[in-house]
């Protein structure tokens, strides 16, 4: 069984967000990076568990520049067998999806794993695009994944107010939500072994950035709290109507 886990690099969760170049990009000065937790804790670990149970291999893939190697190396330290980095500075989801789909087609993987979203731009776009480009079924927000002996997968996905259970055959694309697996911390031996595992760098294919972010802005700062006397409900209604404009 060949499993591909797509991992992204994302700013550490306590990063103070600022923008540069006329608010067209994140100011990366002093930003610390981590592997996207949905990719690391759930997608990668579940892929490793399936490999441990059924045999096969787990490959981690990232689309990004050489600085991303530390994040990729962490995937290898946690237990992936090898890694591929597509050497590009991606600006749009479709660009990334086309790179991944091209690589996944070449590799002939049985399952392609993603986290349900990357915690930087929270787009949740790439997995669906990759499934479409590969013409594979796509299950999003999976919180449970099992394979039976006939290699039929049972997937439980989170939906509004409940869950949905589906069965499907391989190959397929899946995006992982909380619950799919539990975080694994790499040990020192794993970190040293990761140095010797292959990390292949490939050049990107031609793909246009069809949608590019042109401007970012921070949410407005929270204003001061207005306290209204409980006896004065008319004033509350007036403010909600005229100032907050919510009723």
């Amino acid at each position, binding site marked *: 069984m060949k499993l591909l886990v797509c991992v992204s690099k994302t700013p550490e969760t*306590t990063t103070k967000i600022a923008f540069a170049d006329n608010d067209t990009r994140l100011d990366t000065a002093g930003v610390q990076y*981590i592997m996207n937790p949905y990719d690391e804790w759930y997608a990668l670990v579940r892929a490793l568990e399936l490999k441990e149970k059924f045999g096969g291999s787990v490959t981690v893939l990232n689309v990004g520049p050489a600085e991303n*190697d*530390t994040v990729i*190396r*962490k995937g290898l*330290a946690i237990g992936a067998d090898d890694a591929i980095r597509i050497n590009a500075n991606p600006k749009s989801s479709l660009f990334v999806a086309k790179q991944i789909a091209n690589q996944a087609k070449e590799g002939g993987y049985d399952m392609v794993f993603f986290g349900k979203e990357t915690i930087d731009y929270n787009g949740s776009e790439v997995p669906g695009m990759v499934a479409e480009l590969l013409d594979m079924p796509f299950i999003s927000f999976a919180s449970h994944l099992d394979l039976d002996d006939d290699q039929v997968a049972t997937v439980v996905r989170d939906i509004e107010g409940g869950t949905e259970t589906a069965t499907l055959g391989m190959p397929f694309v899946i995006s992982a939500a909380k619950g799919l697996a539990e*975080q694994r*911390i*790499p*040990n*020192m*031996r*794993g*970190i*040293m072994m*990761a*140095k010797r595992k292959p990390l292949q760098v490939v050049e990107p294919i031609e793909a246009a950035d069809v949608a590019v972010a042109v401007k970012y802005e921070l949410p407005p700062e929270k204003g001061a709290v207005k306290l209204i006397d409980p006896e004065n409900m008319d004033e509350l209604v007036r403010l909600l109507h005229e100032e907050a404009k919510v009723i």
Partner: protein
Amino acid sequence: MTKNGLEHAAIERRAKVDPFQGHDYYQIDDLLEEDHLLARDAVRSWVKQEVTPIIESYAERAECPTHLYKGLAEIGAYGPSLPLEYGGGGMDDIAYGIIMQELERGDSGIRSMASVQGSLVMYPIYRFGSEEQKRKYLPKLGSGEFIGCFGLTEPDHGSNPGGMTTHIIDDGDAYILNGAKMWITNSPVADIAVVWAKDEEGKIRGVIVEKDMPGFSAPEIKGKLSLRASITGELVFEDVRVPKENILPNVKGLKGPLSCLSKARYGIAWGAIGAAMDCYDSALRYAMEREQFGKPIAGFQLTQKKLAEMITEITKAQLLAWRLGTLMNTGKATPAQISMAKRNNVDMALTIAREARQIHGGMGITNEYPVMRHMMNLETVLTYEGTHDIHLLITGMDVTGLNAFK
């Protein structure tokens, strides 16, 4: 709420929040390699998951979280710089230092559990042991199946270990060991002890004593107000027959134990930075949130003086540890250089703990915050593995050539 309920509430409070972030004012991360950063990240995650949620409760009860011995083994904290084939991690000395830093960020006692096992038990067996001893003990120590301890200090010989009275007498196929050791981390739970004793010629030798050898006992020392989550004891030997194959064949004299201590002291120089960073991090956060006279106390000059001096001292200590690490990696570090870093960094950490305690005000004396625990721990760290004053005299002797010990 019942006492138990209160305790659990306290545990959960801590469990919910370990907001610690590392501090790297001089971009020292740029000097580190990928595996150093991965090791730091891994051990920091492990500490947040396994140590922070329970440490206040264990420290309060003066109980050793013995389940962490196995966890430390799983993460690879025992002998990370020893070769893979002997159960080590095959890493360099900077990685070892960073692991100690992150463990001590959690608690000095937890770091002590790991540094004794790695530097004071596995290291001497690796460095001075026979091939059979290495094969027999190192993999089990690396995997946490065996816990080890190190016996050098005696009730009457602390700073002067050369004066030890514990001794061995040749008795055919065994040595007869008599004497007592004191202040031994891990001893009451240890499976083996690396013990330093004088032979009949007065030469210091290392012997591996196993816990069920008749005449050997390891009573616990109670009443410690420091390193409360780490277990400490004595080692008592009454005519213990130690088979001759248990003697470390490749070292004689004080340089045996001292070379182990060099390795452990080097780890402490990094470990102290961890404790200092935790205190600074907590103080900075508290000072930004705590308001008095209508503004955060971080906005007052006297608080800023404390915080600014803390990060300055941490940065200096980081540079000292990093440079010492590069010297260790190339085999160039001298014991005197190690003494300087151990002494400076532990003193730095203790000063920061005290200042951080002040910034926390009354809250600083409670176990809602880690600061007072670090401060109490660091009083031990200042004294063990060569006291603050002895390390000063080592530097003094190194620069003058004159011995001021006696």
